[in-house]
């Protein structure tokens, strides 16, 4: 019963290529998030979205953009991939944000490991 699906498990791209990472959730969640996971740095938030066509910058948005045309789909775009974007990318969703019981309980995808040569 996979709930958050990331389209690519492993990708290898060359410097300067445009990269699309796709994420789909089937839980009707409002919120979706893109993180990158690096050893020793933990999870760092790239972008998030509270609703269709809405996006908010996270902590490290430089070099990335996102698209959310439908509620269930949240895409991460690397306009011109660079070697320092080699990482594991995690997509997550949550029912709602803010404070309070259950808020921001994230369901994660399996991850997309991107290597930029």
């Amino acid at each position, binding site marked *: 019963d996979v709930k958050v699906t990331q389209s690519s498990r492993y990708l290898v791209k060359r410097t300067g290529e445009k990269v699309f990472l796709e994420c789909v959730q089937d839980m009707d969640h409002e919120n979706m*998030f893109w*993180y990158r996971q690096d050893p*020793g*740095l*933990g*999870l*760092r*938030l790239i972008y*998030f979205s509270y609703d269709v066509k809405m996006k*908010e910058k*996270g902590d490290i948005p430089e070099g990335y953009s996102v698209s959310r045309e439908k509620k269930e789909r949240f895409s991460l775009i690397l306009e011109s991939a660079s070697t320092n974007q080699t990482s594991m990318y*995690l997509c*997550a969703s949550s029912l709602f*944000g*803010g*404070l*309070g*019981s259950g*808020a*921001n*309980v*994230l369901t*994660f*995808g*399996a*991850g997309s490991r991107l290597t930029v040569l």
Partner: protein
Amino acid sequence: AQRVTQPEKLLSVFKGAPVELKCNYSYSGSPELFWYVQYSRQRLQLLLRHISRESIKGFTADLNKGETSFHLKKPFAQEEDSAMYYCALNGADKLIFGTGTRLQVFP
């Protein structure tokens, strides 16, 4: 500033030993804290949250506002507990994660 600190990158124990993974936070309001876990080749998943005051897989975590800590504890570690553990703080519009602690439990 909102921040989560996990001071240990790696914690190694033998099976049956007690485990404590440390987490300290910085937050001006009333904090909501979580522990997430990632087992080898599995997705990152919620382990427990302080508001539930629950014990999951033998793990507990108590919020100590005086020490601004939310340490994860288990009295007797098992080999299957080996994983990456992340402490997270609800910063209202997003979760703020620590850098993670890798727990290795040796037989």
